[in-house]
């Protein structure tokens, strides 16, 4: 079973790029996506789309990964379409509201796609190593970079467990729905709280055991090494150059477009 958004092994050009380059590109692209004018990001969408295709990611896989977020996407769109107050008709559908809704939704989609392009074509260990590389200068400021990176690793690792737990809460609530409608508010709150507490206890117990397992494998706070070797190849430098040029073109475009 493929879990949406996780690494898909492949041999494409994008797969082979240095993880640092991809991480830097996604971060700078994200800033630009948030900041640029609507017409510019329409163009950028096209370029991002080409990148997705060159990574040999099918639209179907991309769709699968975006699907869980569909609810938010629709919500964001509706919120802007209905409650945009430009022409005073509030709330209601207006041309400017619709336009704003489209733009915001488009920005959001591009952000997700950029992030997915990174996570689908880069092994988690490589992303972590790239992150560590960029955070390394902070060591001079006594920031515990190695510890932060391990914490991020653990958070990623716990994510599926949290989602699974969330599912469990929802199912349990569904199973209780019949009783809930009949019982008093106080009892409803009580039942809900006891459920949350049980789940939190499960999480803590798990975290406890994980900490012990880490200790058993000689984990100690502070400096660690990494089995990932990041190396910029000629193709990486070429791509970095092309990317920088494209970013400049986008900026120029953004300046001249309305």
């Amino acid at each position, binding site marked *: *079973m*493929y*879990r949406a958004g*996780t*690494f898909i*092994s492949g041999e494409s050009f994008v797969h082979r790029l240095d993880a640092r380059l991809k991480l830097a590109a996604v971060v700078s692209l994200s800033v630009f996506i948030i900041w640029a004018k609507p017409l510019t990001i329409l163009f950028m969408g096209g370029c991002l789309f080409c990148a997705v295709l060159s990574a040999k990611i099918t639209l179907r896989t991309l769709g699968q990964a975006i699907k869980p977020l569909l609810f938010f996407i629709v919500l964001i769109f509706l919120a802007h379409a209905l409650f945009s107050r430009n022409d005073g008709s509030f709330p209601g559908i207006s041309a400017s509201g619709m336009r704003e809704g489209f733009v915001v939704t488009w920005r959001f989609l591009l952000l997700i796609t950029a992030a997915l392009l990174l996570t689908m074509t880069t*092994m*988690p*260990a490589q992303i*972590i190593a790239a992150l560590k590389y960029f955070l390394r200068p902070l060591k001079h400021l006594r920031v515990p970079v190695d510890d932060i990176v391990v914490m991020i*690793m*653990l958070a*990623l*690792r716990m994510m*599926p*467990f949290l989602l699974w737990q969330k599912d469990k809460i929802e199912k349990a609530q569904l199973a209780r729905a019949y009783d809930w409608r009949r019982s008093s508010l106080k009892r409803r709150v009580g039942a809900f709280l006891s459920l949350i507490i049980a789940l939190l206890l499960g999480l803590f117990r*798990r975290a406890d*055991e*994980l900490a*012990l*397992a*880490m*200790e*058993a*494998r*000689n*984990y*100690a706070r502070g*400096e*660690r*090494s*990494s*089995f*990932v*070797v990041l190396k910029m190849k000629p193709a990486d430098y070429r791509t970095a150059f092309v990317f920088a040029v494209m970013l400049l073109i986008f900026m120029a475009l953004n300046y001249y477009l309305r």
Partner: protein
Amino acid sequence: MISLNNVHYRYEPEGIAALRGVSLEIKDGEYVALIGPNGCGKTTLIRHLNALLLPDKGSVEINGLDTKIAKHHTEIRSCVGMVFQNPDNQIIGMTVEEDVAFGPENLRLPAAKIKKRVAESLQRAGINDLATRNIENLSGGEKRLVAIAGVLAMNPRYIALDEPTAFLDPAAAARVLETMDNLHRAGVGIIHVTHKMEQAALAERVVVLNKGAVYLDATAAKVFAETKLLQQINLRLPQITQMLLKLKKSGLPVRTDIFDPDEAADYIGQLIKKK
């Protein structure tokens, strides 16, 4: 050599004692099964073997290094690997490779050396084909083998495994046991915590724990011959042995020191042919 000397331990100051005076020696390369009723202290005992728990009284020494001395811990934990009961609580990486590299990374080995260790460990655990797979997409049996590989990456002399076949289907369990057997043949000492008698019979030596103390400690054949003592603490013999005992009770002159179905089949086949 692992040596426990009159080890006492309780989790809470006023709580009941989880271990009460355990003395035990395990030699290099030995294959020991640790069995006993639920809550008898098996997990507590093996967690003393790599200084995850420290005795309240008595001492644990690994190759002469006392676990109470903190500066020995890195060496002790590299020497005795620990496979936890639930692999989901042990696996830290998102991919197999990444997880197996976790231990050597903590030892700050250089990248090339870690890669070599990861490849070797995956090979020894028989899962080279899983190297780049996502942990979330693995079966329960595969996760156990990943947990074992992660421990092997530290190059341990001993591995303690806490019920490594719990919740596995028979085929997956057999694969884990086979891996353990291969490691034993390669000279790694195995401490196998289990409540399945059939599996305990695979070990060279069986230690029975009861209420935090060593109850029996001998070869599988000798331990299983103590039917009365085992019954007293509600431990059941392997089914095939139970059957042979019943045959003997009904007056047939059969051996009762057989714990393995294949061996029993051979034996009974020969008996029938002789007639």
